[in-house]
């Protein structure tokens, strides 16, 4: 079920909100022991909220998410509902307030059904760095679902939630969307408030979401986007009507294909799916233009320095005094990143590493600014590979880092990225990534919607 379908059924009184929530709670009870996508299930709260939603529905209220079960990555502070960031440091932390995004979702009538598992502190690309066990991919339970928004992706893919909130600092929404056959949006930096979402890299974090369809994604962004007085990093850009012109014709849309993204490590079967998707775009009237993003090969190195530096600063607050357990409770990956950040910011190394990275960041921004002079959007594979086996990269952190190679540039440059279902290899999903200039989400939705309506990839469901 999509948000649109659920709202239709609820409005037509085909199902009550309480019945709908019970349906999803039952699915969580049945499936989640095998998948581990949820750290907290808010059974009583969700049923209470559903009862209130039914009253509002009977009174004719038509809020965009009224009665819809939504789950949230455990990075979002939810008042009175345990929030852990996937880490033992916060295993007993109960926030005293809601994140702005959570407030907005609730005001739109959404029912928070639970908090999702994730790589601890959002440090990871597979879900395997959770302190509470990995989340499994419903398409093949021996494989990773992608991370760090592993739980949010699996919740939606396995129909345990209709939509989920994630965070994307280096690809953490887009990669699991690709591995689980979902639409994953990383909005422009500053489009959605970061207030109340546990900070990873404050100049990189983007608050986004995972849905089954592009229309659902647009609807969800309509609720969460827009200026928040509590987040001072949000440019004063008006929020357009994202759902209005979704079916705009994309004839003449110029799609740039960066040659540097079709790298040596790209799985040839994944490349075939992507090339077929681009052919489909040509059939729809788009123009495919080869472009160059010359500094691509430096993006991962640049990202890991800036991100680790910001992580080492952001995680300094976890001293066990005001909240949480002491720092000995940090897992290995958190320690690695804190150490890397501390080192690259320390005396004698600051210029060579951190300052230099800020300059490389500038070069990457220039690459994209130049590209968008000649094309409207950029299309790439979301991931160079198919989902890998659980444990395969456990002893090789660097190999794990390289899986972000196609997604980190959007975080360094602040541009939006949308991953959409583009096909399958051996029954495993492959995502196509669309990138656009800052605040061009409407265009990405149009491009995504056109492709979605011309294909049926997004309708396929995992066999669980």
């Amino acid at each position, binding site marked *: 079920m999509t948000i649109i379908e659920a709202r239709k059924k609820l409005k037509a009184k085909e199902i009550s909100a309480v019945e709908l929530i019970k349906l999803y709670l039952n699915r969580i009870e049945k499936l989640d022991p095998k998948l581990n996508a949820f750290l907290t299930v808010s059974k009583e709260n969700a049923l209470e909220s559903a009862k209130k939603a039914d009253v509002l529905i009977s009174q004719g209220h038509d809020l965009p998410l009224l009665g819809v079960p939504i789950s949230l990555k455990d990075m979002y502070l939810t008042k009175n509902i345990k929030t852990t960031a996937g880490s033992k440091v916060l295993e007993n932390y109960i926030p005293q307030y809601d994140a702005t995004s959570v407030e907005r979702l609730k005001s739109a009538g959404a029912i928070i059904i639970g908090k999702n598992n994730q790589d601890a502190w959002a440090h990871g690309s597979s879900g395997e760095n959770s302190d509470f066990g990995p989340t499994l991919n419903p398409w093949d339970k021996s494989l990773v679902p992608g991370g760090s928004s592993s739980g949010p992706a699996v919740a939606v893919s396995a129909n345990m939630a209709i939509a989920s909130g994630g965070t994307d600092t280096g690809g953490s929404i887009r990669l699991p969307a690709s591995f689980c056959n979902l639409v994953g949006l990383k909005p422009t930096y500053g489009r959605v408030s970061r207030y109340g979402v546990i900070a990873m890299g404050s100049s990189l974090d983007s608050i986004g979401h995972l849905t089954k369809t592009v229309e659902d994604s647009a609807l969800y962004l309509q609720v969460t986007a827009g200026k928040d007085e509590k987040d001072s990093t949000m440019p004063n850009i008006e929020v357009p009507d994202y759902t209005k012109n979704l079916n705009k014709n994309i004839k003449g849309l110029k799609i740039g294909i960066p040659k540097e993204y079709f790298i040596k490590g790209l799985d040839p079967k994944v490349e075939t799916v992507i090339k077929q998707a681009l052919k489909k775009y040509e059939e729809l009237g788009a123009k495919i233009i080869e472009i160059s993003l010359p500094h691509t090969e430096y993006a991962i190195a640049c990202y890991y320095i800036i991100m680790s530096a910001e992580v080492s600063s952001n995680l300094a607050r976890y001293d066990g005094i005001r909240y949480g357990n002491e720092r000995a409770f940090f897992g290995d990956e958190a320690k690695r990143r804190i150490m890397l950040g501390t080192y690259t910011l320390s005396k004698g190394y600051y210029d060579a590493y951190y300052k230099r990275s*800020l300059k*490389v*960041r500038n070069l990457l921004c220039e690459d994209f600014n130049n590209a968008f002079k000649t094309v409207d959007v950029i299309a790439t594979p979301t991931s160079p590979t198919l989902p890998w086996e659980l444990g395969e990269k456990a002893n090789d952190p660097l190999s794990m*880092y390289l899986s972000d190679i196609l997604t980190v540039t959007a975080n360094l440059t*602040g541009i939006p990225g949308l991953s959409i279902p583009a096909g399958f290899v051996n029954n495993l999903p492959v995502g196509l990534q669309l990138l656009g200039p800052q605040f061009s989400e409407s265009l990405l939705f149009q491009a995504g919607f056109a492709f979605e309506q011309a294909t049926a990839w997004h309708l396929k469901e995992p066999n669980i």
Partner: protein
Amino acid sequence: MDTKLTQEEVKHIALLANLTFKEEEMDKFQTQLSSVLDYIEKLQKLDVKNTRETNQVTGLENITSEDIPQTSFKQEEAISNANKQKNGTFTVKAIF
């Protein structure tokens, strides 16, 4: 490898980062961190002499809010997550 970290350096970084490591873990972290630093060396190849730094991508500067006192948390709420509390306050190790 010049960039491989020594154990002394790892211990120094751990001190700066307020992290503790067991002796058995030292080797593993030393190796893993060193391999990441080796990879990062590739940034040295670029000529960035005349490139400006990009600290943030919004271009915003000096965003402030009105200095209006507002209700925040009640005391019990504020300390509700502290492991060590005394008389409604946070407690820390003695400094003196």
